[in-house]
């Protein structure tokens, strides 16, 4: 009996339905909690570009108070509705999906970090960046001061960079090197911020000090030049995409 084809077919059919049912139910039940964690994660990353987030901080509340977001296109024009005519929210724009489109077609979210006391004054513009590292995708957010030149802070994340080498881009040690740098040279030409090869400062304060007089370069990561190249090209491309918008609000 247990070996007959009929029995096997019935058994597998029942099993498939049971397993599928359990997983579908679990997915439905956990969906709200998952959406919330993803939202919290994105908003934490956005805010991390401009401030330190301590464990226990109410990120969602902070975000609602300080961030006012919009979406622009490559020409710097604000886009308010998507192809279907629905209202477009900057938080809902998936930068990874946009990355697959031709850059002229992409949507570019801008998260404006408003002043604590004057809610009409913009303190910093936070823009997402996205690109390829050595092994896999890298992404992050760059906060630009309201002079639209100076970097207030960056937050980078990665999917599969080498731990201890390229993976250091997600550490504060590397990210703090970008603070105060400018994306323009002395002649006001856009040059982005370039991470150098090698680590002459030796990490920490030393690395910041070694490049203190050079506003367009930061110290590199020893043994992770290829990841650094990825970061450089990601910054250059994305900061360039936003130039039209920056010129408009300047």
């Amino acid at each position, binding site marked *: 009996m247990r070996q007959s084809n009929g029995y096997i077919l019935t058994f597998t059919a029942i099993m498939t339905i049971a397993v599928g049912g359990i*997983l579908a139910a679990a997915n439905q039940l956990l969906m709200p909690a998952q959406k919330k*964690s993803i939202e919290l994660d994105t908003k934490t990353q956005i805010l991390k570009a401009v401030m330190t987030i301590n464990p226990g901080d109410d990120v969602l509340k902070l975000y609602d108070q300080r961030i006012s977001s919009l979406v622009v296109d490559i020409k710097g024009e604000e886009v308010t509705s998507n192809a279907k005519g629905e209202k477009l929210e900057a938080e809902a724009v998936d930068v990874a999906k946009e990355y697959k489109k031709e850059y002229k077609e992409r949507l570019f979210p801008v998260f404006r970090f408003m002043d604590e006391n004057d809610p009409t004054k913009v303190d910093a513009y936070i823009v997402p960046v996205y690109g390829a590292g050595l092994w896999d995708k890298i992404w992050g957010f760059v906060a630009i001061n309201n002079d639209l030149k100076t970097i207030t802070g960056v937050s980078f994340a990665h999917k599969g960079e080498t731990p*201890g080498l390229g993976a250091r881009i997600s550490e504060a040690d590397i990210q703090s090197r970008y603070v105060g740098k400018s994306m323009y040279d002395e002649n006001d030409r856009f040059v982005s911020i370039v991470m150098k090869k090698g680590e002459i400062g030796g990490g920490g304060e030393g690395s910041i000090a070694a490049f203190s007089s050079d506003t367009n370069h930061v110290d590199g990561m020893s043994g992770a030049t290829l990841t650094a190249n990825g970061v450089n090209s990601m910054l250059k491309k994305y900061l360039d995409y936003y130039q039209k918008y920056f010129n408009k609000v300047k």
Partner: protein
Amino acid sequence: MSTETLVQEKKEVKTEAWFSKRRKRFITDPLNEDNPITVQVLGICSALAITIKMEPTLIMSIAVVFVVVFSNLIISLIRNLIPNRVRIIVQLAVIATLVTLVSELLKAYNYEMYKVLGAFVGLIITNCIVMGRLEAFAMGNKPYDSMLDGLGSGLGYAWIILTVAFFRELFGSGSVFGFEVFKAIGIENMPNNSLMVDSIGAFMVLGIIIWIQRSKTGYVEH
């Protein structure tokens, strides 16, 4: 009162104790003499990949213990119904369901760890320890015994990867569970060994553990 105790005593005489000598061995054997990683050399892949830091390793351990215990239980419960010709597929379906549940739960309640562990939670499906126990034990034993067997194998896997992670995080990042040990005991300039952060570090720590263990138990491969 007196009748109650009497009934209980009778039961104990009839059935085997919850933790009889034979059952205790289900748990203690895989911890040392029959360890899934160091003796059977199973589940090495994840032992190398996720042991850079203690916290993800702990989450991974809990996930593997959960999966191996409950897949053993489920398979043991339906072992007399499973058609022999598709038993491997049935085992895989049970494991995959449990692993997907773990992954979904992590995504909902510990997104931070979900991002760190990434594909490795999904890869528990291919962890030979889990399927090995189903095929070798749960298909032929009673549910409770199978659960104990799963718990033993799971813990045997867990303590090894936690030990590996302890040394890798300590020497690779200078911390344990993110707590900076060397700074706390006054050694400010302890250099980090990047070899430990690499998979090579895991091989070395694992090799040393196997060496110590085998010199103690006298286990020799034939």
